[in-house]
């Protein structure tokens, strides 16, 4: 499984090749620079060693030379920067329609939940050739999800989601490390990524009892009473959540934000921070009432609603044509503000 004396990490994801190529480029550039500088040093040191009767020749300096060796390195640097930026950009932008896995990190273990509902601890099964998007959060301190063979790493923060993605290319079992120092057992926070052929993966999936995460979320949605306000027929006091996810939402304070995972998370845990335009601020916070896993399930459910055709009075619609009475109310509020004095 693991070589005994590795000098180079295996490549098991689509982005690994790009990182390696960039790395090799940098190694070559550096090797050339080192060769140049060291040769010059050694040559000068030997050629101009002190000899009887030969005095050092005083040289002021040379502005053209200085410019040359500032500008050429700068150009090389810019190439490195641009190339690196491209690789980074790709590595950080998850493709659409990727399979989703929710990751909850805590001291000192990884909890992973597939959108299909399989739950794993310190082990993640993924199929070859499918884009997998990780939606990660931490219950306590900062951790970091690191899979060397995928050349992929992302810190996992408490209080919000961070994202990462990969597409595995080679079946095998690989290390999953926690790369951000997180306390006593930081070095024990190791798991494995099991990459399987699609067929095997399907077999594994069906062998694991579960329902999709969104189904669990749906149950919770009813249990927590979300459904009393968020009705699918649009008659509730809250926006209809169908078709909300992935669309821009107009907020009360004039901003427009993308309804992504972090947004939904904030709506549940800190509804006050981002109020949807055109609704009363009555949604209570669920901070402390739901665990990270439950939040994930709720988020997964809200996401699953995105595929449903929007009904009436969703936030997205409300944003364009705010219901008359609420719009008036907010206008009044702002007018009142300026009329004092």
């Amino acid at each position: 499984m693991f070589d005994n004396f590795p000098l180079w990490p295996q490549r098991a994801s689509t982005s690994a090749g790009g990182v390696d190529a960039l790395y090799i480029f940098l190694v070559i550039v550096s090797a050339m620079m080192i060769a140049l500088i060291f040769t010059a040093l050694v040559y000068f040191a030997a050629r101009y060693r002190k000899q009887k009767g030969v005095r050092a020749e005083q040289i002021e300096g040379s502005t053209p030379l200085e410019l040359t060796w500032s500008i050429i390195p700068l150009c090389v640097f810019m190439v490195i920067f641009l190339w690196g930026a491209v690789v980074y950009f790709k590595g950080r932008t998850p493709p659409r329609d990727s399979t989703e896995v929710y990751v909850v990190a805590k001291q000192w273990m990884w909890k992973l939940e597939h959108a299909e509902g399989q739950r794993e601890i310190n082990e993640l099964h993924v199929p070859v050739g499918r884009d997998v998007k990780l939606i990660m959060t931490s219950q306590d301190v900062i951790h970091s999800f690191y899979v060397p063979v995928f050349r992929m790493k992302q810190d996992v923060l408490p209080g919000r989601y961070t994202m990462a993605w990969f597409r595995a290319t080679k079946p095998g079992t690989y290390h999953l490390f926690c790369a951000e120092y997180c306390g006593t057992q930081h070095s024990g926070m190791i798991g494995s990524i099991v990459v399987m052929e699609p067929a095997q993966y399907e077999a594994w999936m069906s062998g694991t009892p579960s329902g999709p995460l969104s189904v669990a979320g749906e149950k919770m949605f009813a249990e927590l009473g979300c459904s009393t306000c968020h009705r699918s027929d649009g008659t509730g006091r809250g926006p209809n959540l169908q078709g909300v996810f992935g669309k821009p939402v107009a907020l009360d304070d004039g901003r427009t934000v993308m309804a992504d995972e972090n947004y939904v998370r904030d709506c549940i845990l800190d509804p006050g921070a981002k109020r949807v335009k055109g609704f009363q601020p009555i949604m209570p916070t669920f901070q402390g009432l739901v665990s990270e896993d439950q939040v994930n399930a709720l988020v997964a459910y809200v996401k699953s609603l995105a595929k449903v055709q929007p009904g009436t009075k969703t936030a997205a619609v409300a944003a364009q044509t705010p219901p008359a009475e609420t719009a008036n109310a907010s206008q009044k509020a702002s007018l009142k503000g300026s009329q004092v004095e």
Partner: protein
Amino acid sequence: MSDHSSSEHSSSLGTYIAVWLALIAGTILTVVAAHINLGPFNAAVALTIATVKALLVALFFMHLRGASEKLLKLVVISTIFFLFILLALSMADYGTRVWS
């Protein structure tokens, strides 16, 4: 090296009183302005007045104006510059988070 600068010749008593009056006026002005709703400009106006007041204190009370040497001014300017970097580049992260 040390060109003879310093605050040998500090300003006259009249200047001090005038600056003092200006500072008091600035304070009243900023309070009045704060009571008017200017939307996002409330903060801008308040900070502008504060900066004018701070300048008055620095230039006249701290004799920055009288200092013939550019050095002290350079110290002040570079400090403000680095403070600006701290604020601006932090905002480069916080200000662009919503986009990513």
